[in-house]
């Protein structure tokens, strides 16, 4: 028995981990060295601690756990298609940045400002040609091609980039220039 009100955790086995990797392979991620943990119904977290699965579960049974490792992805079922999708968090992009090679959209300086305000982005004509990613999750990079700044999703006609930057990482006012 775990303490009351503790976070529900499930340590994913090799097969389940492989399934998650297969969902994000498209952007280049092929290996996840961390232990993957499902918390709640859809959140996936990466834990790099030295504790074994048994030791983690021992702690879980003893103390009310409020977080483990880093929130890296959300596993969701699309309402429209019924397809299972994995949406990466902004911090997972930093964690696995060396592996990310595909489905990257670089924003302009103006678009980046809007991105950090949590707005959806209207892609330019040249971006539409350069990034032909239809109806899929994409990795968003800053205007200077230096930083991964979040994940978004393109629509049917690749006109709008939907913004998934979480509220706590947005700003109410414009960023410095």
């Amino acid at each position, binding site marked *: 028995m775990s303490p009351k009100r503790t976070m529900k955790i499930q340590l994913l086995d090799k097969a389940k981990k492989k399934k998650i990797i297969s969902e994000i392979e498209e952007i280049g991620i092929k290996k996840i060295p*961390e232990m993957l943990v499902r918390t709640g119904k859809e959140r996936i977290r*990466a*834990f*790099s*601690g*030295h*504790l074994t699965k048994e*030791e*983690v579960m*021992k*702690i879980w*049974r*003893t*103390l*009310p*756990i*409020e*977080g*483990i*490792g*880093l*929130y890296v992805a959300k596993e969701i079922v699309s309402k429209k298609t019924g397809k299972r999708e994995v949406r990466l*968090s*902004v*911090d997972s992009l*930093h*964690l696995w940045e060396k592996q990310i090679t595909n489905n990257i959209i670089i924003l302009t300086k103006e678009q980046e400002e809007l991105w*950090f305000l949590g707005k959806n982005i209207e892609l330019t004509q040249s971006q539409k040609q350069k990034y032909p990613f239809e109806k899929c999750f994409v990795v968003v990079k*800053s205007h200077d091609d230096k*930083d991964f*700044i979040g994940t978004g999703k393109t629509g049917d006609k690749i006109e709008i980039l939907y913004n998934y930057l979480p509220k*706590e*990482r947005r*700003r109410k*006012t414009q*960023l*410095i220039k």
Partner: protein
Amino acid sequence: MTETKKTYSEHLKEKYPPKEGFVKRMQELLGEKGTEEFFEISYTQSPSSIRCNTIKIQPTELKDRFKKYGWKVTQPFEEYPEIMIIKDAKPGEIGNSREHLLGYFYVQEISSMLPMLVLKPKPEEFILDLCASPGSKTTQAAALMENTGTIIANEVSLGRVGILNSNIERCGITNTIVTRKEGVALCNQLLKKTQMKFDKILVDAPCSGEGTLRKSPKTFLMWNPNMIKKIAKTQRKLAGAALKLLKVGGEMIYSTCTLAPEEDEMVIDFLIRNFDIEIQTINLPLKFRCGVCEWEDKQLSKEVKKCLRLYPQDNNTDGFFVTKIKKLSDKCLLKEQ
């Protein structure tokens, strides 16, 4: 500039005058001149210091990025290039920068960085941060451990757990388990049910906050001697319970952001009397003062001289207290709490 500064200080002095009892205690600790210096600086703003999050970016690159914003950046300690002081940033500009949103740095007062610089967590170690929120020290430890080993970061308050989790996420920390439990109960339960023991422990105890007057001048109004006595009791319990969870040969830091001896040296004196421990000498590139061995007619162990007191006027920081403890054996004279 001087005029604006003066006005800011004068405004604070009027709004938040120090209580007589507080002034008297500081005079006992610092003498007339020292007390004057202490209160003078307590009504000014601290410099903007940050810690580069080496999990995500290296100090050289971060410094270059800051310079592009037109900020003046200094690295006050050669051996700790991750610590930077920023000048010429407009209000709100630092926290609003892309690098901050992405977790490339943590806005942290220099004094609050000291416990982890003294504890020196290493990769693969098992660490307990007993009173962890908002997470400045947990994230600092994780960076020093290169996201390996494991940190148990505990916080009793639900609201503060949210802040802790949010900072851990922003800094990309993967080696931490966050728990929410009253500190003493957490230690007792871990000991009883898991027999797990830690290589290193940080007890950055909740305190009366006499050292943080520069950022929260309201503390001047809230200060009262009864509160100090009450908090000191909790601190003794927390530190004692934590020591039981430390491996023999392991190290524990006891720190507070207050200067009241009841919450500092007297807690250490209590530990010395009840546990088989050694107080270790600390070397840091800052101006420090020794711990006080005598307070209100009470003689404390001479060992508490090795504790470090950091007064705000000595290094233009906040006030702080740090002690490094080494556990020599499991011997304990305390009854079960």
